[in-house]
């Protein structure tokens, strides 16, 4: 996707201008959020702040509490404890004007009804003061060619894209995207990424959840890793895992046997190794953990389980 082809997009999606200059405070602030089901805390004391204009990704295994958190923030699920402010308002009492500033793409895609894609976006345009024009909106999510198809006849991925379109139609200041690209083909995924990038360029704050680490690395300014209802780390994707990140693994083969050493000082290890070696060291590599390795260790998966 070419950068310049996104320029009109950026303009199309520019968030509605608002009365006061963007206040510098966080767009989302959560303190001690708890949600219980039948006595079991599925969100268990989450603290988080998301800044204006930031793209924040929540990562975590199935059942970690990502959707529950997003639903509380979007004002569609009650919480059991904690303080939550979204755009300066408690989502539990967010009114219509507040909802108008928030876009939501839920994890579950609706089954769709007998309306066509175009009829659907034309209808929902009536809910917004300054909706993104219908044709433009469909092109943004790559549904231009399916405009006349009934929604209940769309493929799963196409319905997903329609949900994304409806989420951004009202030019929200803050957008929740719960697994926006699950079920999308690789081209559609890249298209969604481009959409998020143009939203960011237009000043929209985005909170997304994903299981794709490359997606988080590509899109997010910061990622939060949540597991069993607790936020275990928050950092820019390249810094996630701190110490874990700096640990390098030196591998080589000696007498036909693979060897490996973990170290924070790979250069020193290499010097010793090379000094001791009579000739070539077959299969010599120095690697540092990628986002995926760090993620797996953060969520507590034993390494043997994934090797």
């Amino acid at each position: 996707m070419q950068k310049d082809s996104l320029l009109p997009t950026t303009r199309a999606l520019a968030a509605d201008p608002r009365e006061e200059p963007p206040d510098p405070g966080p767009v989302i602030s959560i303190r001690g959020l708890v949600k219980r089901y039948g006595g079991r805390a599925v969100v268990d004391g989450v603290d988080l702040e998301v800044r204006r204009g930031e793209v924040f990704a929540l990562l975590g295994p199935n059942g970690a509490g990502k959707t529950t958190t997003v639903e509380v923030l979007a004002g569609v699920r009650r919480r059991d404890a904690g303080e939550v402010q979204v755009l300066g308002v408690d989502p539990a009492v967010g009114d219509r004007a507040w909802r108008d500033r928030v876009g939501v793409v839920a994890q579950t895609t609706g089954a769709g009804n007998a309306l066509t894609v175009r009829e659907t976006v034309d209808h929902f345009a009536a809910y917004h003061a300054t909706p993104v024009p219908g044709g433009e909106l469909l092109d943004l999510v790559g549904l231009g060619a399916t405009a006349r198809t009934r929604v209940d006849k769309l493929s799963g991925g196409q319905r997903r894209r329609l949900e994304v379109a409806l989420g951004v139609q009202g030019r929200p200041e803050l957008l929740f995207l719960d697994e926006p690209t699950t079920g999308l083909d690789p081209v559609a995924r890249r298209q969604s990424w481009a959409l998020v990038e143009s939203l960011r360029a237009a000043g929209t704050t985005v909170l997304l959840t994903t299981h794709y680490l490359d997606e988080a690395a590509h899109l997010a300014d910061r990622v939060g890793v949540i597991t069993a209802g607790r936020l275990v780390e928050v950092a820019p994707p390249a810094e996630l895992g701190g110490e874990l990140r700096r640990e390098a693994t030196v591998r080589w083969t000696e007498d036909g046997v693979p060897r490996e050493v973990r170290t924070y000082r790979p250069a020193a290890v290499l010097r010793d190794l090379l000094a001791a070696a009579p000739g070539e060291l077959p299969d010599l590599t120095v690697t540092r953990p990628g986002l995926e390795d760090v993620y797996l260790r953060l969520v507590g998966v034993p390494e043997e389980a994934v090797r």
Partner: protein
Amino acid sequence: MTAPVLTRPAPPSWTRIARARVLLELRLFLREPQQVVFSFAYPVLMMVVFGSVFGANEVSPGVSFSQYFLAGIAATGIMLTSFQAVGMGIAEERDRGDLARLQVLGTPPLAYAGGKAGQVLLSTAAQLALLLAVAALVYDVPLPDDPGRWATFAWVSLGGALAGTVLGIAVSSGVGSARAAAAGIPALAIVLQFFSGVFFVFTELPAWMQQVAAVFPLKWMTQGMRSVFLPEQAAAAEVAGAWEHGRTALVLLAWVVVGTVLAARTFRWRRGA
């Protein structure tokens, strides 16, 4: 990118959204074969069946079967396009995720209810027009020619349709899944039809059935419709010996109020939050 510092425009008014919803609801209603057959066309089918089976037999001197049952069929039609269609429709929209979408868009519940009511009134009007045309043209049922009777027809229809709409919204909150709604609501509607004198001459029903029926709107709608389509002297054959317009209006109004309160207090965009 810096956006110009201006006021974010207020979202559109609930009436604007309600208007858009009426059109959307009509479209969806017409594209749902199940709704069109079992809610919209059903009374015409009933008319054809009753008319063909009983033909010109008389319920009482001067009152044909077709004429007597047209009243009950019209009342049933109103109940189906309002109570049954709305109750089943909402349960299905909730299951399908349509309502969750409306919730996150901040749709005013009043706009949603307004859309339902508008669609119900329009489809009921079309349904009744079709039914009366078939009754008059095919089964020779005489239609009233004085405006007073048409006025009665109008307020009974309107009251019945509004009561059915709000009760349909209310029942959809209690009924659970779309599947449960599709099984339970038509069953309830059929039982009410038996009790309310849609299939039989009301005065021939056991007294306890008449008393149960008198609690619900359908019996009163049916009776109101009889006062529209039957000759004046037929009033003497009613349980009370009169058409009881005042009481009919009161019962329908009471159900509109009760239904509105119930609907407003129980309405949920999603099951379990």
